[in-house]
């Protein structure tokens, strides 16, 4: 045995670090516990998150709160149709120093630890594409010169699903770079009443930084040390393969609905996010349940559905659930003679 499971005390330490962020977040966004867990899992796995929801649900507030809590350098970019790539990545400016004029690179707002790409689908595809290299490789290349982004680097983007005029749907390549796409759900009447009771003008409580850079590195190291058993890795592999309509593992209804399945990046995302989910649950290893819990936010935005499926009213999360339900946890079943 080459690997040792994390000791219970290290798991407890990891959970404690996560709880430090989760509890204040819960106080900022009331009644959004599951969504906050997903965001926290994505951050622990060092992945980017696309938040999709109606206006006023607290998407921007969430990202702002995260920036404060994690004591990270936070930048906000409001995406508009006239935004240019250099407005995000930065560019060369002519500067005069010591009687000489030289082009100097001036970093854009993307050079931060936590970038809020607000209403990302309002920017043109050209500008959206400027994010590709940054999100995947965590660096920016301008005029042939590559500039590394600060670590950690997270992009939390928001988009409004109902305003389609003047928007540009995100290309599949960029969608694939988001670890999760989280649907921000509306809250119930009781939560609304609580907001009205506890907050003046809807202002969230003041937040202070709860985690240092060192502690964040520690959290990441704990997440990385969470064990992924072979059986679960096999389940993830079969799950991603089952999203492809050409695969035998794909269930019949999903096969008719899916045009293109998830990429290998989806499998990596499931594994990494599964580790974070296991830590959040206090486990030293990834379980099948962790993968099931994150399958929809991790896979739904990576599937390209057939137009007929959309006409039938099938949504990507529904198709992912079909695939998850049809994929057995263990490849070979127990004999049917056993109850």
């Amino acid at each position, binding site marked *: 045995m080459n690997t040792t499971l994390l000791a219970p005390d290290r798991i407890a330490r990891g959970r404690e670090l996560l709880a430090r962020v989760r509890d204040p977040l819960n106080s900022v966004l009331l009644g959004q516990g599951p969504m906050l867990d997903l965001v926290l899992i994505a951050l622990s796995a060092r992945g980017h998150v696309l938040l999709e929801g109606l206006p006023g649900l607290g998407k921007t507030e969430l990202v702002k709160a995260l920036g404060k809590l994690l004591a990270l350098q936070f930048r906000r970019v409001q995406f508009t149709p006239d935004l240019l790539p250099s407005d995000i990545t930065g560019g060369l400016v002519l500067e005069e120093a010591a009687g000489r004029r030289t082009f100097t690179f001036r970093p854009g707002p993307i050079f931060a630890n936590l970038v809020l790409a607000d209403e990302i689908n309002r920017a043109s595809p050209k500008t959206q594409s400027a994010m590709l290299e940054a999100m995947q490789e965590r660096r920016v290349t301008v005029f042939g010169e590559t500039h590394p982004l600060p670590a950690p680097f997270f992009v939390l983007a928001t988009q409004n699903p109902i305003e389609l005029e003047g928007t540009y749907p995100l290309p599949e390549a960029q969608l694939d770079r988001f670890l999760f796409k989280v649907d921000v759900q509306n809250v119930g009447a009781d939560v609304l009443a609580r907001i009205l009771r506890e907050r003046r003008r809807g202002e969230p409580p003041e937040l202070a930084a709860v985690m240092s850079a060192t502690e964040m590195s520690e959290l990441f190291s704990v997440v990385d040390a969470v064990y992924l058993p*072979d059986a679960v890795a096999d389940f993830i592999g079969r799950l991603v393969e089952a999203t492809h309509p050409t695969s035998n593992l794909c269930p019949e209804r999903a096969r008719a609905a899916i045009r293109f399945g998830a990429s290998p990046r989806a499998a990596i995302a499931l594994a990494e996010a599964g580790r974070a989910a296991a830590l959040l649950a206090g486990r030293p290893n990834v379980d099948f349940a962790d993968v099931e819990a994150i399958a929809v936010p991790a896979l739904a935005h990576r599937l390209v559905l057939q137009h007929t499926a959309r006409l039938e009213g099938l949504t990507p999360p529904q198709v992912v659930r079909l695939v998850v339900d049809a994929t057995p946890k263990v490849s070979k079943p127990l004999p049917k003679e056993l109850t």
Partner: protein
Amino acid sequence: MNAVATAKLSRLRRRVHGALFLGGFAEATAVILSIAAAYLVGSRLGAWPNVPLHPLWATVLVVPCAIGGWRAWRWALPPMTQAAHLDHRLQLGGLLVSATEADATAWDAALTSRLHAAQARFPRLDLGALLRRVALPAALFAGVCLLPQGTRTKVQGNRSIAQALVDLEVTIELAKQEGVLPEEKLDELGRRTAELQENTHNGREATWADVDELQARLQQERALQQDALAKTAHALRALKESQRNAGPQSKSGAAADQQSQMQELLQHAAAAGLLDKLPPNVDPSRSAKAGDAEAFEQLAQALAEAALQQAQAQQGMPGEANGEALEDLAEVLRGMQGMPGGEGEGDPVAGGDFPGRGGVNRGPGHATLELNENFDGDTSAMQAHKLPPGRVLPQDWEVMQSRRVDPEVAPQRNQGAGGAVAEGAGEAAWQRRLSPSHRAVVRDFFSSKRTANDGSTEGKR
């Protein structure tokens, strides 16, 4: 991995193997029972021979055992897969499956307590499902076993042999009724035939050699009988000739010869079984005395009549017989009786089932009266019934006649080139199937080669 987890995994492995074995065993048993039930139904219906129960049939259990063993070996789950199943089933959160791959010493206590807590969810053998798989075929098999034997005569084994035995039985019965062969011989042959039939019914083997032997013995008895009849006829003729030549004042030497001939006649008649068939008023011992011409004439007449009846009965019996010899013998006997068509004198003998002698067809002489569609009476009882192939006679039926008939050829509708031709449209035709050799001849007849060589046939097409 800790001891508790190892023990649980071993237990699961045993259960998986046991379940696979029992599942294969049950499925194979169900299949075997279904096949056996189907076979029993077939044997009840007479399609297949009956297989008696035998202790060796228990060896059939080797097949389910082998299939169960093969299934347990072929579908055995790898240890990692079993661990994953157990982990998932007991909701251990992946701890067990991780413990089998990595060092989980720090989590031993948690793993042990969760294993104990989840004891109730440990996979169990579903004996009910296993029994349900076998129950229906077993019930079917038991039900078929309990079914009574069918009302049909059960002819099993080699159907040709069984049919030959039935034919033989019918022949023996007919011979008994007609009295053409000695009864003790027929009884012996009948017993042997019944024994072979019983063997066939019980599925034991009966060979054609047995049937051939019986048929040969029957044939031999008939030949002996025929020979005795012929000798009787010749002795009778010789004695009559001798008496005619001697006249009323015969000398003592001639009388002694006649006495000797009479003894010889009586011996042959006894060998042919004719003495038992003489009318009560005919006493052979009185007739045998010399000088009683009236008694002798009466005896000769009775013997000739009995011999003729037996000869004709032999002719009417199925099986091989020397028909010409019997016909000659009948002619000789008719001559001695003076019957019509014969060369001697005497009154026609009444009775018998022959045309002109009170048979069913009651025509004068040999002109038979056919009870065909021109006959006004009810002839339904005389209708011939065709039995299905392989079907033996029902017990309440009686064999009256058996004969060879031409095989039935199923007529086939002539199909047009474009598909089926409408019936009754004037285009439908019926044809018989041609054998390959005939087909070749027809093809040759219509071939272009023949057309080119023989212009005379062109106009006939």
